[in-house]
């Protein structure tokens, strides 16, 4: 079981990228922002769930500011943010 030790952040606010922030919380939650919110909200929610399960972490508040990123980019940024949050100092 992974442990969120600190805030983890990855990505940028450049076009075709996204900024992902993860922090420890009581329950899992997702705040997905950006112009694609309605179109890709459900897809992103699944992606986040699947990634949190793969990292074996829970109690994570995920914030994604999507600047038109491909799904694979959101996944990669989330993975980096989680790895940074989990990493032992």
């Amino acid at each position, binding site marked *: 079981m992974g442990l969120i030790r600190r805030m983890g952040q*990855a*990505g940028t606010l*450049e*076009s*075709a*990228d996204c900024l992902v922030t993860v922090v420890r919380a009581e329950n899992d939650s997702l705040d997905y922002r950006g112009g694609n919110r309605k179109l890709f909200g459900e897809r992103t929610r699944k992606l986040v769930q699947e990634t949190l399960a793969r990292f074996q972490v829970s109690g994570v508040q995920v914030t994604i500011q999507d600047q038109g*990123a*491909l*799904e*694979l*980019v959101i*996944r*990669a*940024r989330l*993975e*980096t943010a989680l*790895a*940074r949050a989990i990493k032992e100092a």
Partner: protein
Amino acid sequence: MRAMRSMLYIPGNAPGMIQNAAIFGADMVMIDLEDAVALVEKDAARDIASGFLRHYDFGDLPVIVRINGADTPFFDADLQAIVPLRPFAVRLPKCQDPSDVLMADARMTEIEKRAGLPVGTVPVHAMLESARGIENAYAVATASPRVRALTLGGQDLTADMGIQKTRDGWEFFYARSRVVMAAKAAGIDAFDTVWTDFNDPEGLFRESRQVVEMGFTGKAAIHPSQVAIIHRAFRPDAKEVRKAERIVAAASEAERQGRGVVAVDGKMVDGPIIVRARHLISLASLYGMEGGEAR
């Protein structure tokens, strides 16, 4: 055989650029995890590059990944992430002597075995960017069958030698000669360094012509605008291509008639000239020319 005139550098932490890699017209692209990525973003660039290699369809565009050097804490993680995804090649920076290649080769072999890939699946492009590396060019080129190209790293080489890069680039003459000769002797490709001033297309064209004439397979580009200029420099002269076609036609005719000697345009033509003519025609065809004209 494929055209490998241009290799466009793309920073590994720039997904917007990577997703557009195919539209710039480069013969190859190189996702850079090394110098184009800040130290604190190495992990993020590795994740982005892996994500693209795993999920993105680049069509038939060869994608090379430049990893961080063996002298950094990122080397092993880069190889672990990238090798199983079978890029067109891994570019190995700062090769000084054969042991650098052999060490990477051993690590890559372990990773390939673990991933269930045939050993040797992922080729290496060995980057020579120090005086010692240049002097060991042939030994590096032949250190492992994985090495399919030597590449010259001009920026680091000038730093290593304590000299400045000039517009004429004569300070690279020896290094380029050494690299291209070693590559030819080893039967592999040779790629030239970047032209850093993308506001000087004329300088880029001149330098590209130089490396074409020296026998390089291709040249790196650090900006999409450089791709077309490099391709123009690699395009054989139309008159030369038409002449080569006359030489090859005359040689075939002579062979059919059992004659050993061929005359073209009033000049005697012998074996090496015919070989050269055939090579030029194959390059012209590879670069999209028909009958000496650009398609």
